[in-house]
Each structure stands twice: as structure tokens, then as C-alpha cells.
């Protein structure tokens, strides 16, 4: 009979959660293997320094900065962004549910069961990758992937939270109307063991330095989510 150690279980559970939220590993720099290692830090992302415009893509996050033309000004609300698109899923080819600026619905989904509060979203996991460099006013785009071990009806549609650094915090509603899965009644669902990828957009606030960007699904006691660091520099 094995001697079960509660601390072993706690460490195992914590490490599994930590592992699940880690961004994918970097690629092997095959074309740079013969470079000599510098004494100081290697500028691994030299393109970032020159990316005063266009697009910076690191992992799953992208930042649109001043392009002129249809590009939003730093004070423009994200809802007025002119760059509408449907981002293809780079892995599976599935489409990403496009972002829409929807106000939070604050659906009351909590109920008590045996003195515990439960919600329909308790078995949902959320993953995504956020990283890169940006200026205040840039538009940060990334993808939030939701998956559930049970089929989940997205009616009412859940809200999500985005915290950018210490002080910026927003709550919006997911764009459930554009979800590709529906039940017999035509309501949007998240099928068991399938995932739905939601495009996310958030305006970079007027802050500087490395900022933690946290995405969480609103509702459950233990809100599923993920986070990454965005380095915000002066324009």
C-alpha cells in the first residue's frame, strides 16, 4: 500500500497546472547554431527593434502598431479597429472565432450544490500564448483556446477578463454567436474534448516596462486562464 503524501499530491497538481500554461518551446535555431555566444545578451529578436510598424508576431500573440491608413489611433477604442480579419488556426487549419467588442453580460451561472458553489464552466480549461513588445496604444491580439471535458452550452455566453499590468482591467463577453458548434436547438456549444479558438484584442494602456497580461474566463471560482509578458516601450 503506497504511503500517500498530501504534499506530493499538492506539488503534482500545482506543477501540472503550471506545465499546462507554459507557452510552447522555442524552435532550435538551426541557422544560428554556428554563431558564437556573445558576452552580453543575444538580441534574439532583432526584428522587434525595427518593428516600429506593421506586425510583431511572437508565438500566438500579435501586436498591430502605427501603420497609418486604417490603423487606429492610440486613443481609438478597440471596437473601431479597421483591420477586421479571421485568423486561421496555424495548427489545425480551423478558423478562429473573430473578436467583437461585446459588453459583459455578467450571466448569473453560479448555483449551490452541497454547500459548494458550482458553475457550468468548472470543467473548462483555457490556454493561449501572449508575449511580445508593444507601445502604448498598440493593439494586442492573441487567441484564447477553450476546451471542456463535457459538452458545454454557451448560452448564456460567458464573459472573460483581461488584466494588463497592475491597473488596466476589462471584462467583455465572448463572441458566442460566431461559434461553429451548435446543439439541436441552434444554441452555441463547446463540444466535449474539442476546442474553440477565440480571437482576443486589447489596447495596450499607457504603461511602461514588462507588463503581465492575464486572460481569465469569468464565472468559475477557479477561473481558467493564462498569462504572458508584454514589454511596453515608449513610442
Amino acid at each position: 500500500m503506497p504511503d500517500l503524501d498530501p504534499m506530493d499530491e499538492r506539488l503534482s497538481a500545482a506543477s501540472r497546472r503550471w506545465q499546462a500554461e507554459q507557452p510552447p518551446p522555442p524552435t532550435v535555431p538551426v541557422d544560428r547554431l554556428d554563431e558564437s555566444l556573445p558576452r552580453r545578451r543575444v538580441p534574439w529578436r532583432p526584428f522587434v527593434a525595427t518593428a516600429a510598424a506593421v506586425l510583431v508576431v511572437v508565438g500566438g500573440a500579435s501586436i498591430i502598431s502605427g501603420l497609418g491608413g486604417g490603423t487606429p489611433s492610440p486613443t481609438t477604442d478597440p471596437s473601431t479597429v479597421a483591420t477586421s480579419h479571421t485568423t486561421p488556426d496555424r495548427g489545425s487549419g480551423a478558423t478562429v472565432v473573430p473578436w467583437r467588442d461585446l459588453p459583459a453580460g455578467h450571466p448569473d451561472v453560479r448555483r449551490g450544490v452541497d454547500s459548494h458553489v458550482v458553475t457550468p464552466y468548472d470543467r473548462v480549461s483555457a490556454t493561449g500564448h501572449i508575449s511580445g513588445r508593444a507601445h502604448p496604444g498598440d493593439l494586442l491580439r492573441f487567441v484564447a483556446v477553450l476546451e471542456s471535458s463535457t459538452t458545454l452550452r454557451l448560452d448564456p455566453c460567458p464573459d472573460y477578463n483581461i488584466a494588463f499590468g497592475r491597473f488596466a482591467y476589462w471584462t467583455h463577453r465572448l463572441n458566442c454567436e460566431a461559434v461553429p458548434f451548435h446543439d439541436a436547438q441552434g444554441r452555441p456549444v463547446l463540444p466535449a474534448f474539442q476546442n474553440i479558438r477565440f480571437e482576443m484584442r486589447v489596447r495596450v494602456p499607457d504603461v511602461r516596462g514588462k507588463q503581465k497580461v492575464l486572460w481569465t474566463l469569468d464565472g468559475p471560482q477557479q477561473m481558467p486562464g493564462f498569462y504572458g509578458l508584454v514589454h511596453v516601450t515608449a513610442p
Partner: protein
Amino acid sequence: MTERGTPGEFARWVEPHLTAMTRYAARQVAPADRDDVVQEALIRAWQRWSTYDASRGTPVAWLVGILSDRCRRHRTRQPASVVELVDSVESAVPAPAHDLDLERAVAGLSRRQRLAVDLYYFVGLDVATTAEVMGCAPGTVKATLHQARARLRNLLGDDDA
């Protein structure tokens, strides 16, 4: 320079161990620096690939050993202000799903105990590979993990559990 193979072969050799390397780096340096340090370690590993001796250890232990050195070098050349900034950012918005008490307690372990916990639990290595990386016997790893868990129970006030 390298007699063992081409860069492509090296990439295929390293590929199965990238996850472990990345997890280890994530435990050792700030998240924003993780990929830089891993890639530095990969370049170093490529330069020393011809010295790898399978009879002396597994590839993952050899790679994590090189990575550990790069992490140490990386930490020593970071300005203190950057470290403080990253720490403050991380503590500013804690992820609700995290066991923050446990994370803080792990940070309070001795260096050796924390290394064992990081390698065994968070990186996901088995005891034998953890022992290879730490340069000790598997039994020593088990004892260190046992002591670390006891210390964590003490730090978290779970002695009665």
C-alpha cells in the same frame, strides 16, 4: 567543427528534450527571457555536441546541465532593476488558478531542495534523471524531495496533515 552530424540531425536529437529544457528555464529565469536562454543553451550544446558521451548520461541530463550554466550566467548579468520589475509584475496580477502559497513556500526552500522540486515536479524528470542533473545518487534525490516536502508542510502550516 561538429563531427556527430548536421544541424538538422542535431535539431532532431534535441527535439524530444525541448519541453524539459524550456520548463527548466522557465523555473530559473524571468518568463520573457526563457526562450533566449534556451536558444543560447542549444547553441552551446551544438558547439559541444561532439563531446557528448551516451555512456555517461542521458541526453536530457546533459542538455539541462548546459542550460543550467546558461541560466546562471544569465542571472548574473541581469541588472537588479530588471529583476525587481519582473517580480513586481508577476506579483501584481496573480493567476487565480495558481497555488500561490505553495509557490511562495517553494521559493523558501534551500537551493538544493528547490532544485530537486523544480526538476522532479515542475520539469517532470524522473528520479534517475533528476539525480543525473544534480550529480548525486537517486536515493539522495528521494531523500532531498522527502525533506523538501516536510519543509513545505512546515512552511505552509500543514504539519498535521
